[in-house]
């Protein structure tokens, strides 16, 4: 399972890429593999307030709907509009074109609560 070294991870299988005070969020390779064929993605609205650890998006496979949790607190400043017509990007490129939303972090110290790549690999038994 691919766990890039430049990202931080939530135990609930979201990844975060830090760009200044912006956190780019998506789901991990492990998560997309477990969910299987993604057919619908509901991202949060731009300007919505998301809170670390709270559900803020939904990813649906053929079989089931799964909640996605915000890894950090802040305001949503961008969402991946392409997922509306191409939800399969989450399966095909979970760390690239399959990114979900961007959060302007209100408390960047929350990043310290997230897992390192090694700890996340351990968490998923990889």
């Amino acid at each position, binding site marked *: 399972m691919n766990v890039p070294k430049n990202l931080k991870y939530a135990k609930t299988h979201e990844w975060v890429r830090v760009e200044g005070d912006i956190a780019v969020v998506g789901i991990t390779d492990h998560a997309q593999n477990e969910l299987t*064929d993604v057919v*619908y993605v509901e991202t949060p609205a731009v300007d919505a307030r998301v809170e670390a650890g709270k559900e803020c998006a939904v990813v649906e496979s*053929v079989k089931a709907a799964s909640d996605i949790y915000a890894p950090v607190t802040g305001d949503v400043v961008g969402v991946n509009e392409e997922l509306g017509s191409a939800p399969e990007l989450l399966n095909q490129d979970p760390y690239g074109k399959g990114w979900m939303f961007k959060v302007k972090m209100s408390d960047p110290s929350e990043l310290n609560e997230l897992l390192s790549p090694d700890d996340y690999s351990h968490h998923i038994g990889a």
Partner: protein
Amino acid sequence: MRTAETLKRTPLYAAHLECGAKMVAFGGWEMPVQYSGILAEHTAVRERVGLFDISHMGEFLVAGPNAERALNGLLTNDVTKLSVGQAQYTLMCNHQGGVLDDLIVYRLEPSVYLVIVNAGNIEKDFVWMNTETTVSVIIGNLSDRFAALALQGPAASKFFDFSATLPHFHVQRHQVFDKDCWVARTGYTGEDGLEIFCEAADAPHLWRMLLAKGEPFGIKPCGLGARDTLRLEMCYPLHGNDLSEETTPLEAGLGKFVSFDKGAFIGSDALVEQRAKGVGRKLVAFTMAEKSPPPRPHYAILANGRKVGEITSGTQSPTLSVGIGMGYVETACASVGTQIEIEIRGKRFPAVIQKKPILKKGP
């Protein structure tokens, strides 16, 4: 629900793991939900061929000079219409007309029938049939001794020469890769195909040989995930979702599988009365508009802003790439073309009631 330790496994359990299956609990069994992916498996069956393990289904043998009379008293369809070698879809109701199970009856010999029941209902059906039958008959539960494989898809007819003389909804005894089997031209996918009933011990051999023989056709092992999307596109009901003891065959739109002129059967009084009064709700099929979340069981169905029913089965149709489903709605809102809404996470999404089947094709 049983815990993982007590889930039953079919004789193909090891074969599934070898094929890379994700296993899930279903009806008391540990079954493959998918191998390569539901969408790819679904497409293989619609366009080429797929192989399913359906050994979790129950096999009963009903035998004796009164077998026909016994089945006609227990089931809704008229079993006397079956010639030897024919199959029939039928329902088993309780005394209130509620559906205990839906099943397929195969007439193997003049007074021997093979009855296929749903995995989760095996014990319940077996006790019910033996308790409720009013004539002397042998009803044997051979579910643990049989395995069953479903070979489904347009290429399924190319595997064996006997397919040329095995008509749709018929069953025959054949040697399949040197094993004695009953082979039926039936299935749960809407495609042409075979269901092969064999000794449990022979199942791994047949599984391997069928996959090898199917390689030139692009065969895929298929799990319960694809089985569900395939059957739902055809609007075949699933007992436990679309049928239950709280719903009747008439409400489910399955009246053509209820014989009102064959004489009394369990549930017939209630069904005769319901037919005279009319049903208050109907099982309808619907499609969602594009770019809606997939519909799921228990989501509310609304018409004119008011809740008129609930979804019993729903998914994203791999063939049509839109959400599809079935559910019971008030009869006044059940006609084809009615605009409805599905409530998903507090939002309402448009849908329209469709004629069944949703996918317009068939063998």
